[in-house]
């Protein structure tokens, strides 16, 4: 069975890579298969890790008010299905509002506490950082200044409430320098990650065909 699985994997890998030549039926076959199996996989995954343990198992396990409180998300979940009936489709707005409200409420507090404040804290670094050696002191201090200036200038670049002239123009110009270096570095990193994946697939094919 494992041998068959390996050959299926090799065949599908080649089918996807065949797109490099041109769009063809083998690629389309693999592409549609990918969409189908992925959708099926996520249905099973969400049912197994969300709905089953959080709703079904919990409903059977809990007693009293805790048990019946679970009816609320279950009813909201079923109300989503109202979209199947055009006349009652508006009912699905209730669970949508519920999820949007939760997401907004959590985002409001969690984003401030979990992202904005830690990011600002990590930026407010000492501009003179004493290290073990002079080189370390200079290096660390330069890095801290670069981070501080970079974050402020990158934010200035996205500040559109005032016309970019004078000091704001200088700040935003420095900001675009940081943004371009940042995009370039991210781009290079992403390319290498994809190349690494490609090497992995080619190594797999070489192993399947006994060439490695």
């Amino acid at each position: 069975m494992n041998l068959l699985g390996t050959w299926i994997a090799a065949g599908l890998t080649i089918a996807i890579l065949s797109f490099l030549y041109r769009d063809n039926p083998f690629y389309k076959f693999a592409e549609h298969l990918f969409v189908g199996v992925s959708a099926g996989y996520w249905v099973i995954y969400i049912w197994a890790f969300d709905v089953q343990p959080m709703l079904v198992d919990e409903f059977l396990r809990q007693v009293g008010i805790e048990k019946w409180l679970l009816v609320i998300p279950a009813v909201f979940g079923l109300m989503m299905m109202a979209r199947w009936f055009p006349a009652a489709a508006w009912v699905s707005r209730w669970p949508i509002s519920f999820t949007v409200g939760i997401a907004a409420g959590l985002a409001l507090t969690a984003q401030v506490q979990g992202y904005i404040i830690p990011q600002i804290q990590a930026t407010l670094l000492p501009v003179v950082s004493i290290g073990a050696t002079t080189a370390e002191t200079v290096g660390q201090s330069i890095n801290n200044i670069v981070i501080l200036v970079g974050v402020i200038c990158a934010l200035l670049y996205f500040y559109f409430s005032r016309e970019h002239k004078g000091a704001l123009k200088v700040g935003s110009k420095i900001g675009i320098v940081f943004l371009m270096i940042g995009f370039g570095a991210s781009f290079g990193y992403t390319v290498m990650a994809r190349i690494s994946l490609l090497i992995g697939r080619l190594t797999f094919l070489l192993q399947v065909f006994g060439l490695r």
Partner: protein
Amino acid sequence: MKRDIPLIITFLTGFLCVIAFFIPHPPFGDLQQRFLVWYAIVAGFTMILGLDSLVKYNVKKITQHKPGWQYSYVLLFGLALVLVTGFQSWFKYNTPFELRSSFMYSYIHIIVPLQATMFALLAFFISSSAYRAFRARTFEATLLLIAAAIVMLGRVPIGEMISDKIPLRSDWLLNVPQLAAKRGIQVGVYLGGVVMSLRIILGIERTYLT
């Protein structure tokens, strides 16, 4: 009923989440956690809608013989295969994620190679787009080109063979200027997220109801 009640639900759930954050004691103490569980359950049900939409679209494509309708059979076959093996494995092993199960067999031998190769394929498209983006026509494009070239060279052995400083410069670029740029963007995005959340809770932003 159709518009006001959804707005009230959004306001109440959002407001209670904020209250629970500032008053972490009964009856609000575990409210955020409880809402997160409820959120996951409701989101789980939406998978049924997604599945229904996918099946309907492809069945329609087959019945109306739209271009590429034959491939819809492949999609539906793949979907049915994974669902059948998933539930079969669930009944047999009490979990679909048992390594010996047919569900995991299809995951390892179909989904993993397809997904990895799809992402690997992007390497070629990124390279071709890089060719267009990296033409150093302006000062900014030159910066982009140099930063990307140093990072790419710093990630492979040939970079170290050219100069042992290249990997160090690559790490510096990633850890200092890139970090600063990314942080500037992220702070802006999160501040925008906070403003948007406030607008949603207060009922100013209502596009999700359309």
